[in-house]
């Protein structure tokens, strides 16, 4: 029995996990950045609003208790959203084995989709794309795989080092032929 660290269904003898691919950390950073903007916005906007509405006589005094209460409330909301986004990022991944590619898609809290995208001998062509300034500097992009399976192509988007991942998929494909032979894959 093969070592199955992710308790994947239909894990066969001789199958091994070659690598795990997640979105680039920049994807998480981008979401955390906007949450950060959302977090600090009221701390600037509310004093400005009070300043505008105060007519000549200076800022109205607010009890420190009110400030502490609402600051804690707002931080609590952002805290929940932050961990929700992190969970979404961390749970969303592709597992490349020497037999197949599995997509685990976490959408919100209670929507989790685990699917074998294809077995490796269905791959016809792999394209990599690195787009934009940020993608080029941080070396992340997407991989589009053309397949001979019923689903004609699939996309791994915003992943780090797409050229390196393409190489790993190619090597896994060769390993599949070595380990399992070149017989056509049978979906189970």
């Amino acid at each position, binding site marked *: 029995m093969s070592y199955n660290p992710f308790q994947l269904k239909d894990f066969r003898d001789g199958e091994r996990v070659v690598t795990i691919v997640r979105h680039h950390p920049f994807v998480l950073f981008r979401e955390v950045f906007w949450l950060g903007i959302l977090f600090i916005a009221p701390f600037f906007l509310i004093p400005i609003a009070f300043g505008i509405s105060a007519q000549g006589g200076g800022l109205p005094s607010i*009890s420190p208790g009110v400030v502490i209460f609402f600051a804690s409330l707002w931080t609590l909301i952002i805290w929940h959203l932050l961990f929700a986004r992190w969970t979404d990022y961390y749970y969303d991944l592709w597992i490349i084995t020497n037999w197949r590619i599995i997509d685990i898609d976490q959408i919100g*809290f209670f929507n989790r989709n685990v699917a074998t995208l294809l077995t490796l001998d269905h791959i016809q062509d792999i394209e990599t794309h690195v787009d934009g300034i940020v993608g080029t500097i941080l070396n992340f992009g997407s991989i589009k795989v053309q397949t001979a399976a019923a689903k004609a192509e699939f996309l791994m988007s915003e992943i780090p080092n797409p050229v390196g991942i393409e190489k790993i998929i190619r090597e896994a494909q060769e390993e599949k032929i070595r380990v399992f032979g070149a017989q056509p894959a049978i979906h189970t």
Partner: protein
Amino acid sequence: MPPVTTLPTDVGMIFWLFLAIALVVTAYFVFAELFHWLRFGFMYPLVWIAIPVYLIGIVILIGGMLTGIAAL
């Protein structure tokens, strides 16, 4: 016809209402997060760090809200 309800005379009641809503929302998030983290923790090791950080943060922030009410 008598009034259905009246505004609370103590303005502090509003803060308790906000706190109650925040606790309900927090209960939902904590349940959802812990459900996923504990269920799939074997394949996502970072959740074992995230759990205490998340829960300690919640305790501190709810404590902050209670401190705010106490300081009114």
